[in-house]
């Protein structure tokens, strides 16, 4: 084998590890950095995240304000049963959609532009690429949605303070519920990345995701009782909502139950997407 002889090049491009092969950990770390650079350099990310923040922080307080404007017409029973947390997190349902679309685009925008060839060419360890995308996106979504949910909660409770029906962040289960709202969106985001990886097309992946989040819950509700309630609680959106509840609703799982169900879906889809990415030609 002939030795390649060429003039010494810029030291900046020398392979990072001089002692043999880089570890898979380093490959993963680099892929994560790369994915973060990708995520922050396209406008769709900024718009989707702005939309997410606005829906979470805006809708809860807005609906609360509407409710308060008609407060005098409420009966004592209605006021007693008022769920201050439900109103705080009213925007999460809609935020699922912007997070979902952005998650799908993490994969499908690369297939659409053909950049996936560059991505897998640069990192042939495709499972690690999927992992890096999911981790990067999850961290970004976690930070953005946690502070959004916290803001929505605080604003809503401030609005409710004069009526003495609000909750404090230090009340039992409240902080967990705020965290649960964020985790709900993180897991939906991770699921969306996997759906994008499996289907490769934006339109198809978004359609499937919206069907699961919006259409199927509506159809299942029409099934004869008790099937409708039994199935509904295991749907991803219901499992997610269960995480941000303090008072357990009759048709929902417990917060922990919701968390495990949604984690189960995520793990299953991650596995499926990883297998498909590795098996298929890019």
């Amino acid at each position: 084998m002939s030795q390649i002889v060429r003039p010494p090049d810029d030291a900046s491009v020398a392979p990072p590890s001089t002692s043999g092969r880089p570890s898979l950990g380093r490959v993963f770390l680099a892929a994560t950095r790369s994915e973060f650079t990708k995520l922050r350099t396209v406008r769709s990310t900024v718009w989707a995240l702005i939309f997410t923040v606005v829906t979470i922080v805006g809708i809860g307080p807005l609906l609360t304000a509407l409710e308060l404007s008609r407060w005098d017409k409420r009966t004592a029973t209605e006021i007693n049963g008022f769920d201050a947390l439900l109103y705080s997190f009213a925007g999460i349902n809609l935020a699922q959609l912007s997070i979902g679309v952005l998650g799908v685009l993490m994969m499908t925008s690369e297939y659409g532009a053909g950049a996936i060839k560059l991505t897998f060419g640069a990192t042939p360890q495709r499972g690690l690429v999927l992992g890096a995308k999911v981790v990067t996106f999850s961290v970004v979504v976690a930070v953005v949605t946690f502070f959004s949910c916290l803001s929505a909660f605080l604003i809503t409770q401030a609005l409710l303070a004069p009526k003495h029906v609000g909750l404090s962040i230090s009340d039992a289960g409240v902080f967990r519920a705020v965290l649960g709202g964020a985790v709900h969106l993180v897991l939906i985001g991770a699921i969306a990345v996997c759906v994008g990886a499996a289907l490769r097309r934006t339109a198809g992946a978004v359609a499937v995701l919206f069907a699961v989040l919006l259409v199927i819950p509506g159809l299942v509700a029409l099934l004869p009782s008790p099937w409708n309630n039994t199935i509904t609680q295991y749907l991803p959106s219901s499992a997610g909502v269960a995480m941000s509840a303090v008072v357990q609703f009759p048709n929902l799982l417990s917060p922990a139950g919701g968390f495990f169900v949604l984690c189960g879906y995520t793990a299953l889809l991650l596995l499926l997407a990883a297998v498909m990415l590795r098996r298929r030609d890019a």
Partner: protein
Amino acid sequence: MIEAERVSKRYGSTLAVDDLSFTVSDGQVTGFLGPNGSGKSTTMRMIVGLDAPSSGHITVGGRNYAELRFPLHEVGALLDANAAHPGRTARNHLLWLADSNMIARARVDEVLGRVGLSDVAHRRTGDFSLGMGQRLGIAAALLGDPGTLIFDEPINGLDPEGILWVRQLLRSLAQEGRTVLVSSHLMGEMALTADHLIVIGRGRLLASGSVAEFIERSSGHHTHAQTPDAAALSTLLQQKGATVSADGAQGLSITGMESRDVGITAAAAGLTLYELSTQRASLEEAFMELTREHADFRASAGVTGGAG
């Protein structure tokens, strides 16, 4: 060094690459030629691990591409000039690529300068012309300063100045000792750029050799003679082992013998020659000849020529 060993690739019922073996050596430009749809791109995708061969294997520097970690330091590839998110700037496009292989970010500005895109580094690639896209793709391939470079149709969409630039770039990369594989369906372009040629048609290897050998071997290479004694000269030449066919009333088309020997033979027999010339097929003709039966798409009337 790239080595393909009995590689086949099947998509459904289509055999895109059929039992293909070749070697691409260091320090020279290897042209990868074939008509559209002949399997060039598929082969290149298999080299960089994007598609898996149905059988056989391809290695780069003795290793399977899929096993490489941070491969951009070893192999750079331009497979698709449009393979960039249209909303991202050229610089950001190269930044994520650099990050993925832990290449210093300073290198990004360096390669942008080398391909002449420094002025548009902050423009979104969606606004780029095809030529600018090609330059960005070449910059991406050069990013990790790899010893092996693979370019799929790099001159598509370039203006004459750009074509000249690519030609010089490929030559200088090879002179630095790198392995350079460049595909094209333009034989003429390859004649100017490549040292070695690999020609495929319908996924099969048709020829492999130096550019000079390639011209030599092609059937269009022959000696033409004009003589009033065509029949006598023809018999003499055939006795000496040449293959001769009539070309007009006084013309002979001779293969298997150099024109020098034809002249000596004629002079020794006292035969008059009006004209004696070596006919070299152009590379383009040689290529057409070689791939005629293997072109996937062609205008049937145009080739046979008898329809009008």
